[in-house]
């Protein structure tokens, strides 16, 4: 590809190498550790689901039991397998028995290790087959009913009530949306369990539960067949239950997942050790399930300046790319995040936005980039807001973005009303249609504002990565280099759920889902 920006790809290569070193460095830490939610994910993937009489999710019951018995280092696969061999019960029956106080996992006599592995592998294969089946079904839908052209129109629903969300989602699909994201309720990311069942009460969003996933999936398949486009479903596998939500999403055929440890560390104060370990397993699952992940770099620009800190977005995207590759997630599933968040008072701001969007496109040619709309500089002036979104849509179509998170004219006021979303979709359809091939027709002036901007940002990002390569990612976060937010290695939520793996530890899903590569 010829670069419209005249980027120096040797600088890109150098930056990418630094990012690779940074990710690999962290990966050695990741591989030595496990967490309570990683173990609960294994329990879920072994077929355990549901809650007990006091509404504790059974995966939590199981892992709490292991933790209390001091067995977390061996992992849930070991203890569940051991119990299955010892008792002949299924994983679900064992979970129920633990809840009833009839079984204490770490007190059962330890069985022959090869038998434990065999019984677990048999169970694991069933789940892996189910997830492969979902992936095949998605491919089948895509080849039979088809999909909308990129950029996909991506809108959110956030009523708090899953049934109301369904109505809003189906309306959006009929209006032209390609992806429906169900925003999670405030503070779900800090819950160390996943709520159960269909829910109708949420604040600024709706609980991510497996039942809610199922309800929305069914509704979108229905409307997708009607409108002749496969409608993708998006949710959030971030926060303290990152890999569990990835597993639920893989089981219920979600298509897109927000999935970014850095976001959780910086914006939710989740402990970095915990969430980096969690992220790895969740990305392995997402990769295997064919789910497009979205990373959260766009958020950096809500707390720091979009012009001054643009390079932190690129640096973080490069790191996220390497973490994803290590988890077996291909470029085609990397919805790396960036955003149109410059102060609208900036002279030539449109040129700078265009430059950065084109830069991201050229540096990540195969990634379905997730492009976020103006949010921070939206105000109560909804009329101006609609115009801001129009410029944003223009940049997107000119630079071939992948997932277009539609801006809302009411962004500064409330989560979208039915009519707000309809206006946004109309705006994007109008701009995309009228400007469809504009990008192919234009070149940028050599040495002009647009080219120079991108070259400058790239250089700063490469320098930053070189620095991180020397200090390590964790120390960089401690120093507040991303989003201007400082987080400590031992600070934040969830650290007590992290433990070193013991000798007998195994997670059957990693080798199966990485296709035996690891």
């Amino acid at each position, binding site marked *: 590809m010829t670069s419209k920006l005249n980027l120096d790809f040797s600088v890109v290569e150098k930056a990418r190498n630094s990012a690779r070193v940074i990710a690999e460095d962290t990966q050695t830490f990741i591989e030595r550790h496990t967490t309570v939610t990683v173990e609960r994910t294994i329990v879920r993937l072994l077929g355990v689901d549901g809650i007990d009489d006091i509404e504790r999710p059974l995966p939590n019951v199981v892992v709490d039991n292991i933790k209390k018995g001091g067995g977390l280092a061996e992992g849930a696969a070991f203890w569940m397998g051991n119990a299955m061999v010892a008792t002949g019960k299924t994983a679900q029956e064992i979970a129920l028995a633990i809840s009833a106080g009839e079984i204490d996992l770490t007190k059962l006599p330890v069985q022959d290790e090869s038998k434990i592995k065999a019984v677990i592998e048999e169970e694991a294969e069933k789940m892996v087959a189910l997830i492969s089946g979902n992936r095949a079904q998605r491919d089948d839908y895509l080849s039979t009913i088809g999909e909308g052209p990129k950029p996909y129109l991506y809108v959110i629903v956030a009523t708090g009530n899953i049934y109301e969300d369904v109505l809003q989602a189906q309306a959006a699909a009929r209006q032209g949306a390609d992806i429906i994201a169900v925003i999670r309720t*405030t503070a779900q990311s800090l819950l160390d369990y996943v709520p159960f069942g269909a829910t109708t009460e949420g604040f600024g969003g709706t609980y991510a539960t497996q039942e809610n996933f199922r309800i929305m999936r069914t509704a979108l398949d229905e409307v997708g067949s009607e409108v002749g486009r496969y409608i993708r479903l998006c949710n959030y596998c971030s926060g303290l239950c990152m890999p569990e939500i990835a597993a639920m999403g893989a089981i219920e055929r979600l298509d897109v997942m927000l999935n970014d440890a850095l976001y959780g560390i910086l914006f939710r104060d989740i402990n970095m050790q915990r969430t980096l370990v969690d992220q790895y397993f969740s990305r392995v699952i997402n990769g295997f399930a064919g789910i497009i992940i979205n990373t959260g770099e766009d958020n950096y620009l809500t*707390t720091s300046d979009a012009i001054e800190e643009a390079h932190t977005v690129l640096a973080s995207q490069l790191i996220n790319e390497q973490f994803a590759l290590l988890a077996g997630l291909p470029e085609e599933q990397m919805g790396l995040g960036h955003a149109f968040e410059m102060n609208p008072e900036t002279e030539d701001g449109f040129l700078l936005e265009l430059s950065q969007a084109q830069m991201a496109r050229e540096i990540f040619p195969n990634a379905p980039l997730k492009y976020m709309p103006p949010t921070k500089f939206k*105000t109560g002036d909804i009329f101006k807001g609609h115009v801001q979104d129009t410029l944003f849509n223009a940049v997107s179509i000119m630079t071939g973005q992948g997932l277009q998170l539609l801006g809302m004219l009411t962004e500064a006021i409330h989560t979208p*009303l*039915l009519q707000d979303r309809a206006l946004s979709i109309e705006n994007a359809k109008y701009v995309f249609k009228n400007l469809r091939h504009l990008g192919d027709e234009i070149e940028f002036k050599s040495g002009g504002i647009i080219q120079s901007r991108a070259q400058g940002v790239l250089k700063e990002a490469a320098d930053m990565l070189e620095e991180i390569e020397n200090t390590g990612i964790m120390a960089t976060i401690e120093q507040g280099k991303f989003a201007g937010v400082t987080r400590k290695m031992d600070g934040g939520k969830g650290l007590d759920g992290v433990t070193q793996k013991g000798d007998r530890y195994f997670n059957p899903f990693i080798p199966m889902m990485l296709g035996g590569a690891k």
Partner: protein
Amino acid sequence: MITTNNGLDLTKVKPYGDTMNDGMMQFSFTLPVPCCDESKEAAKQLLIKMGIDEPQVVDAKDLGVGYTMFTMYGKCSHTIDYTTIEVPKVDSDVMDIHGVEDFIEANFKRDIVIVGACSGTDAHTVGIDAIMNMKGFDGHYGLERYKGIKAYNLGAQVPNEELVANAIELNADAIIISQIVTQKDVHIANMTELIELLESEGIRDKMIVCAGGPRISYELAKELGYDAGFGSGSFAEHVASFIVQELVNRGM
């Protein structure tokens, strides 16, 4: 300025389109019924009930689920007596950073301690940072920069218990909180809880308590038991001026 007797009567103010007292207003809303002659008529009748004369549906479209979005114009029949309007407001003077610093030096022999947080489940730090952090916002320095003020920003998602415990420990003169998420009235519950907690600790009278955020008005804050509320477009000097003057007024 051109002064024609254009018919403006401040005791009977009406919306203005292009002619004084034409009452012109624009509307957009959705009715949960399909797009058809009957729903357009329903929309018109709704505006008539709202006191709008000559309602016109200028656009109506189906939103995909048998609901219809309307864009409408009409002429308002109501008027407002502008001369009798009273809005409760912070009535202290707004001083700039130097004014506040001088005021503190002239009136206090100690530093003023202000403890702030984005409290409850709210994770939006940008607003409270704009008010408190050194660099401030939009060219207005934050409280940390003020000589004579000791500002403690506890960050986001701070539970009320923790906030109160910190305020006691730091011997705070004032607590200031930021509330951005207002969906389903979460802020009301959280703001009320803080006041109740301060009352049960018996320290509500010993501190100035203020709240801020884009949907927070002075009136709402007062109603919930706060000393003042600050909305969009507020800066550190607004809350700082209020706090220092209020402390003097109350002899604290």
